[in-house]
């Protein structure tokens, strides 16, 4: 057993690194967002300029990320639910081996996959037109906001589904069996009994995905970099084209604000779990 002093000594390097490479730049992002470079001192100048230039992109980002989160949630519940309540052994095996594939595929690779797959002449349209379901002339490119949502859902669903399916598998089966004996349908069991019990896991998974999607640069750059686009693209543009750290950090602060409410729930969850006595 390590003493208190030895424990603090051992954790110190990690804390110092975190302080230098995370807390220090984080505080700078706040300082630069709220400082007025023309007049000196503090001000909301950067926010006024950021809002004037990019208010539509802020809204666009919020819609894309929220919509993706909702779809990811629905898909994860469906996948986890079938894995828990499904009876067809073949289907269960297929689903179990299938759904996890994109789990660790990086966003930049996912974006490249979708860039070719969802294009006007991509494989998706080719297959749909080959089956005769759509006229080739009606084929449209999905490389706009829909492409971003599809890429996010494709990449993030396995992560949330894995967490949700794990939590569902750990549930006490007796309530499920009791409901089944009383004649409840599987959909009703899923929504009425299973989902409420894994609600926390589902929320944590969705919040983590939300925060990650809020700061992905490669996907909007590669799928749809024209306006309206996500504010991550605007941040990169302010810095690379104008070295305008003020407006970029104001936009950064807006992403913090959009996740703040959600992160608060997540952190509270973290404290509760972290503080649990062993």
């Amino acid at each position, binding site marked *: 057993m390590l003493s208190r002093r030895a424990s603090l000594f051992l954790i110190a390097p990690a804390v110092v690194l975190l302080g230098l490479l995370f807390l220090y730049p984080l505080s700078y*992002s706040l300082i630069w967002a709220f400082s007025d470079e023309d007049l000196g001192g503090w001000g909301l100048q950067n926010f006024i300029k950021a809002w004037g230039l990019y208010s539509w992109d802020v809204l666009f980002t919020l819609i894309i990320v929220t919509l993706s989160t909702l779809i990811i949630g629905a898909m994860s519940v469906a996948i986890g639910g079938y894995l828990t309540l499904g009876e067809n052994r073949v289907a269960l095996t297929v689903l179990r081996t299938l759904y996890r594939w994109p789990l660790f595929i990086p966003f930049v690779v996912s974006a490249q*996959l979708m860039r070719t797959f969802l294009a006007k002449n991509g494989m998706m349209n080719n297959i749909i037109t080959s089956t005769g379901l759509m006229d080739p002339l009606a084929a449209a490119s999905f490389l706009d906001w829909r492409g971003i949502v599809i890429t996010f859902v494709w990449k993030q669903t396995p992560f949330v589904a894995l967490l949700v399916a794990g939590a569902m598998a750990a549930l006490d089966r007796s309530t499920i069996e009791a409901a089944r004996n009383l004649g409840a349908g599987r959909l009703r069991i899923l929504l009425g009994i299973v989902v409420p019990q894994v609600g926390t896991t589902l929320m944590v998974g969705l919040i983590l995905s939300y925060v990650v999607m809020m700061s992905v640069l490669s996907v909007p750059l590669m799928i749809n970099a024209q306006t309206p686009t996500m504010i991550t693209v605007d941040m990169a543009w302010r810095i690379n084209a104008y070295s305008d750290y003020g407006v970029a950090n104001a936009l950064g602060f807006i992403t913090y604000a959009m996740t703040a409410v959600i992160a608060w729930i997540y*952190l509270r969850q973290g404290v509760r779990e972290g503080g649990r006595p062993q």
Partner: protein
Amino acid sequence: MNILRTSIIAVLLALLAFAIFGPITNLLIWSVAETWYFPAKLPQSYGFAFWERVFRPQGNAMESLGNSVLIAVFTVIASLAVAIPAGLALGRGRLPWRSAFLLLFLLPQAFPSLAVHMNIARIFYSLGLNGTYTGVVLVHTIQGLVFSVWIATAAFSAVDRELEEAAANMGASPFTVFRTITLPLALPGLMASAIFVFLISLDEFTGTFFVGVPDVTTMPLLLFTASMEGNYQIASITALILLVPSVGFMLFIERFLKADVLAKVGS
């Protein structure tokens, strides 16, 4: 009724399989397409000419691959060098404010990282770290740190305390106990954390985008540049090289991360 239900399930699974493997198949086709012009549904000619271009020793793809692996190795070393002691303190020590420390290491996951990365780049610029390997390794390390600290903590927590006490009772010094009992038992979890950090570094885009430019090009940046230039063959081959370790890790993670360690994550 039963046949109807079975066929609905079959159709849904087929759609899911198409949604997951369709994009990957499209990428595989692009990686061996030599000419593919609109509006052909499939390439006009196939071949490995672009593979030869990518793997040419003097080509910038090999340089990026070398950079990526080198940076990932140093990121793993840097992350584990701080995460193993931290995990030991969190998992085994008498650490005051333990849950506050665990929470602290979660913070980077609770903030959109892009806004932090661009400020790291500005700070690194004033320190002359932009465009250096050290700078890129540092920005990757901070992203790997969260996971490596949490997994290391879980790995050390999962070690049976009675085994350590038994060794200590038989006269082993604390360091001998650590070297012969604690470390070997925690090793699978630490290995999982090392592989995970390696993968995070290999796949990292945003931090490298801000800190690495213009001198350090990794595979994800090469993929991005090739794709934006419309060079889909090079982009697809690069993407494929990044895809293989990601899928491999997904298939084998359960061997490394045992259930007893997973159960201790966050506790």
